[in-house]
């Protein structure tokens, strides 16, 4: 009932002090909120919640399981970036559990003194920890047996400074591999170096890339059957990709397989039996390109290699074709943006599957392939699980290369599905990039549903833990020019958050039931690797510097710690000389996603860093550049 004028007149005297108080209070609250909002932008808090449960955990009988030959190292050593050659990133150490992880404490830190992206995981062998850094690619050995883990030795390869100028997307390095008393790693300027792990002395050094042609190496080599496997980087510079097998003892080249060109260069011979017709034929690495296009066509295997010792096969992905502008390279552009299976002894290709034929959106196929066995229809299938850049989670028969299933784990509108009869993705005609005009809202964006940062698999839950992106982009093509040693792109992109406004996701996926079990929405792209442990804990980091432990079964946040810089590194776990379980992670934001901080890029230009900066404008306010290794353990 409206008050009469007289009433209001009479009431004014009494109400006034209360009103003033209310107004003052409101102003104070608003000010406080504004200060808080400035320090912690609202969107940061909005997604910082526990996982959304989407499906029940798989029953023990219908769980994906480790391959029969894969016995995780229970001594607690960590000798390869993906933990084992099956690429599971699973630690069999169970001292830290979902019940006690909340008490995790920092035990020591190590500063590299560098302020670029730190993507590598440290390795631990015996009582020594080995650390590789981004350019200038120094290697440190820390003595874990002594308090504070002092430096045992320090190796400086002194790579050419000019290599920084041809390294696409920060001067990162993805770490080393240990085997037979030696440590193998790559430098940005294209050298593979073997060090004596005990002394840090150089055993051999081989140059595999030429920076004047735009070639660099950022990947972590894999050691398999006495061969060190090294792939080139440079998909943005018109580099013809190749994978080289070096003799672990001497560094001599055993074989070298290119990703484009005639069959003899690609090591395609009588053993090659691709399952789909599009890969069958002679010299497709030449005929599926415009003339000469294959010579500058990319396909760099700069990502992860898995190895099946039973089949003697290695599995690795090839990068995007060059240039990005697809109008300048008609054809399927074999053998780029696909997965190769090769005999590790001879290098001969066994099968190939192309995830993105005639790639339009920089969907490199270099992501990890996790080798597991899946119980499907009562029988165990030898498969590889590949969360591809396209946004599809590919389950592929690792003996034949046939696709068993392809389901979106990320939001996709650039493709409508994968035809299981031909293996080919069906393209969405509305999202084709065009010359001189912009195609809007292409999902996933160029970094894909997931980029290089490896997932993890836990045999305890049968789930794959996928750290990934939720990004879309606008893209238009422009004519590009090839000049050796300069970029070869021809695409203008601008990225932004995908549906839901969160830019990252951390997803637990059941590969047997082919569905998400739970999912955590992260505000920023999740650019760190994942690690699952026998204690049912999964570790990952965020780009604003939070190192998180979540429950492997339901994604519940168990523990988190804020680190000095954003996290794009890979967590690892080891057993220390004292018998305790430790967890280590690098904080050091950078990479393609973090270039705005590590490279001090200008967000005023939305095409900066191939359009990624447009999606990361707020990162400068949320983290600083840095390079510090953190090691955590339970209190004694």
């Amino acid at each position, binding site marked *: 009932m409206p008050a009469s004028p007289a009433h209001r007149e009479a009431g004014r005297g009494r109400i006034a002090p209360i009103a003033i108080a209310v107004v003052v209070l409101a102003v104070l609250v608003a000010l406080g909120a504004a200060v808080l*909002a*400035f320090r912690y*932008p609202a969107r940061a808090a909005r997604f910082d919640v526990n996982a959304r449960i989407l499906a029940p955990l798989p029953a023990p009988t219908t769980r994906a399981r480790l391959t029969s030959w894969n016995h995780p190292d229970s001594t607690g050593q960590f000798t390869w970036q993906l933990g084992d050659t099956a690429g599971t990133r699973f630690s069999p150490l169970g001292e830290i559990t979902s019940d006690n992880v909340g008490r995790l404490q920092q035990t020591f830190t190590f500063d590299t003194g560098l302020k670029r992206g730190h993507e590598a995981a440290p390795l631990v062998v015996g009582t020594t920890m080995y650390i590789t850094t981004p350019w200038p690619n120094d290697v440190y050995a820390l003595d874990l047996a002594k308090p504070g883990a002092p430096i045992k030795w320090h190796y400086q390869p002194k790579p050419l*400074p*000019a*290599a*920084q*100028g*041809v*390294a*696409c*997307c920060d001067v990162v390095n993805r770490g080393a591999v240990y085997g037979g008393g030696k440590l193998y790693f790559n430098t940005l300027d294209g050298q593979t170096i073997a060090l004596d792990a005990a002394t840090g002395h150089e055993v051999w050094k081989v140059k595999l890339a030429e920076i004047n042609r735009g070639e660099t190496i950022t990947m972590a080599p894999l050691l398999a059957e006495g061969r060190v496997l090294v792939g080139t980087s440079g998909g*943005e510079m018109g580099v013809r990709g190749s994978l080289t097998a070096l003799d672990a003892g001497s560094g001599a080249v055993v074989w070298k397989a290119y990703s484009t060109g005639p069959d003899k260069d690609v090591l395609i011979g009588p053993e090659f039996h691709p399952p789909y017709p599009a890969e069958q034929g002679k010299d497709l690495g030449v005929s599926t390109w415009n003339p000469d296009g294959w010579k500058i066509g990319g396909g760099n295997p700069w990502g992860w290699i898995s190895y099946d010792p039973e089949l003697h096969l290695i599995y690795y992905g090839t990068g995007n074709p060059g240039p990005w502008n697809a109008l300048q390279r008609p054809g399927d552009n074999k053998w780029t943006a696909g997965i190769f299976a090769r005999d590790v002894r001879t290098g001969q290709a066994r099968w190939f599957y192309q995830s993105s034929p005639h790639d339009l959106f920089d969907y490199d196929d270099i992501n990890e392939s996790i080798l597991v066995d899946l119980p499907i229809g009562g029988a165990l299938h030898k498969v590889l699980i590949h969360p591809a850049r396209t946004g599809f989670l590919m389950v592929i028969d690792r003996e034949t290369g046939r696709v068993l299933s392809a389901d979106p784990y990320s939001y996709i509108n650039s493709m409508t599905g994968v035809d299981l009869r031909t293996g080919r993705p069906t393209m969405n005609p509305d999202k084709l990039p065009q*010359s*001189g*005009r*912009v195609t809007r809202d292409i999902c996933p964006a160029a970094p894909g549903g997931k980029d290089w940062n490896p997932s993890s698999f836990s045999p305890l839950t049968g789930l794959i833990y996928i750290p990934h992106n939720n990004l879309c982009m*606008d893209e*238009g*093509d*422009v004519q*590009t*020019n090839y*000049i050796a*040693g*300069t*970029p*070869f*792109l021809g695409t*203008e*992109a*601008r990225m932004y958050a995908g549906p839901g406004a969160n830019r990252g996701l951390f997803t637990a996926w059941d590969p047997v039931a082919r569905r998400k079990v739970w999912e955590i929405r992260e505000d920023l792209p999740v650019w760190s690797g994942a690690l699952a442990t026998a204690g049912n804990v999964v570790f990952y980091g965020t780009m604003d510097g939070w190192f998180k432990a979540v429950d492997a079964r339901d994604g519940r946040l168990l523990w988190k710690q804020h680190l000095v810089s954003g996290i794009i590194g890979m967590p690892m776990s080891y057993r220390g000389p004292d018998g305790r379980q430790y967890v280590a992670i690098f904080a050091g934001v950078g990479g393609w996603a973090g*270039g705005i901080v590590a*490279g*001090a*890029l*200008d*967000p*005023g*230009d*939305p*095409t*900066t*860093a*191939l359009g990624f*900066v447009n999606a990361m*404008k*707020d990162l*400068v*306010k949320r983290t600083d550049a840095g390079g510090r290794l953190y090691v955590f353990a339970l209190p004694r």
Partner: protein
Amino acid sequence: MSSLSRARLALLPLALLQLSLLASCGRETRDYRSNMLHAQNRAADFRGNAYHIAQGQRLFGWMNCSGCHSHGGGGMGPPLRDAKWRYGSSMDNIVQTILNGRPNGMPAFRARITEDQAWELAAYVTSLSIRTRKDALSARGEEPANVEPPTLDERKNPRAVSGKQDAAEKKVGTQ
């Protein structure tokens, strides 16, 4: 008012127009082969010239500068829109950087472009961050409509990076 003064008054706008036309004479001079004429004041001649800036913008795409430096925001290479210049901000410094390269990754373009083209590139690069006469700036975006043409952008001018200014920028960024 006498008819004479009225006529004079009418002439005034015409005279002004003529003056303004004269003022813009230099901005469009097209030198297809710069030569010794430029030896005296090369930097100024290239910097204030619309034709050279537009040519520089074209070359910025053709020589793949945009692959590393984007449209001035950087990427594989440092940003060019800010006031930080590792190797000096003068036209001469920039031309030297382009022609001879720099040790941390900038490749040398000496055998890839002519010296005149390097000056045109420098004129364009300079116009990204340093105040250039407005009527000489290119209104054309080289990218497919993804970015506003540079003239519509507010240009960052060389400035001492003060905390106050940074805070103000951050504030804008949060919105």
